[in-house]
């Protein structure tokens, strides 16, 4: 088995009100110096070694992310 990490983030041009709400809350906590926050999703998949990169990107692009509004990265990590 291999451990695969898929990180999904809203595209830079897509407004991220959730990230903005977090940034606003940091100001209320009295923390200065955080210019921007964007919030995404982090997936960890345990997959068969035979699963190729094309399949992993298909998993990411068809289910984990919406290609219209989100970018993703797929990385294999040591489990």
């Amino acid at each position, binding site marked *: 088995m291999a451990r695969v990490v898929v990180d999904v983030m809203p595209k830079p041009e897509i407004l991220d009100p959730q990230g903005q709400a977090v940034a606003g809350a940091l100001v*209320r906590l009295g923390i200065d110096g955080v210019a921007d926050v964007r919030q995404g999703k982090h997936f960890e998949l345990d997959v068969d070694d035979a699963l190729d990169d094309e399949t992993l990107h298909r998993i990411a692009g068809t289910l984990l992310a919406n290609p219209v509004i989100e970018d993703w990265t797929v990385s294999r990590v040591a489990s």
Partner: protein
Amino acid sequence: MRIGVITFPGTLDDVDAVRAVRYAGAEPVSLWHADRDLDGVDAVIVPGGFSYGDYLRAGAIASLAPIMTEVVAGARRGLPVLGICNGFQILCEAGLLPGALVRNAGLHFVCRDLTLRVESTATAWTSAATVGQELLVPLKSGEGRYVAGPDTLAQLRDEGRVVFRYASGNLNGAFDDIAGVASADGRVVGLMPHPEHAIDPLTGPSDDGLVVFSSVLGAAVGR
């Protein structure tokens, strides 16, 4: 007695909470999330809804709203505070109540009338009830599953701080059937089901929820 009801962006149940306060014979006072004072109220209700769209985690952003600084300070002085549904989540995120509320075990949003059992009357919000009293009230939440670490759960049980348990089935997988808990001094109570929706048989399943709001009438001392 004046009881404040807070409205955040995304709050839904503030109007019903105001109505419940009025039914109980107290004067409701509307409070706004951006306010920096509590207008001298004798108790505060944090109502249900989806404050700040549940961004980050349910209740997480609302727990840092300006009004919550005053609620936390008030609670430290013994001000009675009630959190219902999203209000319960906010009070947990604000550190006024132990534990957390997570996604329902069955993943489904649950919207149903159910029976709650009062487990403790040693709180500001259940003093007019009796131990073992059953309340027919609605539950409507997607993230209502109460969880806490084993030490916290043991402490809640040992100190009698489990205030409400689900008595007609545990629909969200809450640990130990817990529907509501109290702070150590019994002044702050949070619960997932909605007593404010059950104050008049015309508009709810019963008027059983009214006892929560009438209880606090005798609890104003100690501010």
